């Protein structure tokens, strides 16, 4: 039991510690691709440390929702990191690896962030909330469906089970349907974590913002927690993508050495995905808001085809 808790804690710690580096590394790669030298990959850690030391300014119209949201967001990401396959294929708690649970943990965070955006009654906050909710409603079925394609092929809905089965039988992964599901999941990752072409993480223009518009009112340690949580969300989505679709290097055993090996494999896979993300973000323009549903419908179609292919291509 203690052993199980330690593994869950190690996973949460690894995601929390790596998340700012993933964001910083992606920024550095993007800067390089547009001919700049860019900030150091460690810059997000300095930003977080500074924000934790700063004063907090809160609108006098804000309610408890505004104050609670950063903690809810951060807690949700820690729990999600503890139950998905990060360092080991099958983390401890009995409910661990349940796809539905993970999906709705993310949605709980989104729900609170959307409420917080509305809470201070700033015009941009409400606009951001309405866009975020619309996009997550469209992205949610695709996340579920693309993982279902993997679940059908490996015969279990448990994320740990999928990783173990696909890792043991690479023949199952060598399938065009696998690629379709990967594409679908990658597109919803861009939508859910506020990356181009759905949302621009570097924008200063309020009218084009989605995620940023909801957090405009946050400052000091609240902002630090929100930013950290959204970096963790990106890292978690990339981890899911890495470990579900390329399930190699994840240890089955639960020794410290095996987990260290799992961490190395994770860092390599995250770096490769960060490069892919930077390449995509540098080469596409932001989509007009009303074109976003078309992109998400496209990714839903990919996921649907992938599920259908399970029955067609045996």
């Amino acid at each position: 039991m203690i052993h199980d808790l330690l593994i869950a804690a190690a996973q949460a710690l690894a995601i929390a510690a790596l998340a700012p580096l993933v964001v910083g590394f992606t920024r550095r790669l993007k800067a390089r691709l547009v001919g700049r030298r860019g900030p150091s990959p460690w810059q997000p850690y300095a930003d977080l440390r500074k924000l934790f030391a700063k004063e907090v300014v809160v609108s006098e119209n804000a309610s408890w929702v505004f104050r609670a949201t950063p903690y809810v967001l951060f807690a949700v990401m820690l729990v999600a990191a503890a139950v998905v396959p990060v360092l080991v294929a099958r983390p401890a708690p009995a409910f661990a690896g349940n796809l539905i649970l993970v999906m709705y943990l993310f949605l709980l965070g989104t729900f609170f962030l959307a409420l917080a955006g509305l809470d201070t009654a700033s015009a941009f906050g409400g606009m951001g909330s309405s866009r975020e909710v619309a996009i997550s409603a469209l992205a949610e079925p695709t996340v579920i469906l693309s993982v279902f394609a993997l679940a059908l092929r490996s015969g279990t809905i448990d994320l740990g089970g999928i990783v173990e089965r696909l890792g043991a039988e690479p023949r199952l992964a060598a399938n065009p349907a696998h690629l379709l599901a990967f594409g679908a999941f990658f597109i919803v990752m861009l939508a859910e974590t506020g990356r181009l072409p759905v949302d621009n993480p570097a924008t200063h223009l309020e009218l084009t913002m989605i995620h940023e518009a909801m957090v405009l009112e946050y400052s000091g340690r609240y902002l630090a927690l929100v930013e950290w949580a959204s970096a963790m969300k990106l890292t978690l989505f990339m981890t899911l993508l890495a470990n579900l679709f390329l399930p190699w290097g994840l240890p089955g055993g639960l020794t410290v050495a095996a987990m260290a090996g799992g961490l190395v494999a994770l860092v390599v896979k995250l770096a490769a995905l960060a490069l892919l993300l930077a390449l995509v973000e540098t080469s596409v323009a932001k989509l007009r808001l009303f074109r976003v549903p078309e992109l998400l419908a496209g990714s839903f179609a990919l996921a649907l085809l992938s599920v259908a292919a399970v029955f067609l291509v045996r």
Partner: protein
Amino acid sequence: MLRQLRAALGVGVVTEPPAPASEIEALGVTLRGEIARLFGRSLHIRQVDAGSCNGCEIEISGLTGPHYDLERFGLHFVASPRHADCLLVTGPVTRNMAEALRRTWEATPDPKLVIAVGDCSRDGGIFAGSYAIAGGVADVIPVDAVILGCPPSPKALLAGLLDAMGRLRQ
């Protein structure tokens, strides 16, 4: 898409090289040291246009481009005063912007720094005495440093930021 990526990789980094002779680099590195001492290697700037002709804005946006690349020194422009450590205020303060500027200052969490940019921001510049002008930036909110020039070049802006850091430390 591929053509774009090939162009991006072919052109390479156009940011000033880290040669010791480069003044920009020297200024930036010293500035980074000062920021490290005061804000912990991270300074977030909110630019406020209080009635400027946009000359200063063009120079400021030059700082973020590939040539000067201010982000490599740990500086970053943000979208909200709540996220900022430093307000970069340009232009004479017009009557219509005076209240907005005051509120922006109140919305910025402490510790904060106010830097007025351009000749107009000191006393109204060529607009001084106009009925539309409430005065310089210092007439509305407390100012820590003024960067003169009409408009100041990006290099002068970097030097001015450095100067403001030094003054804040004393």
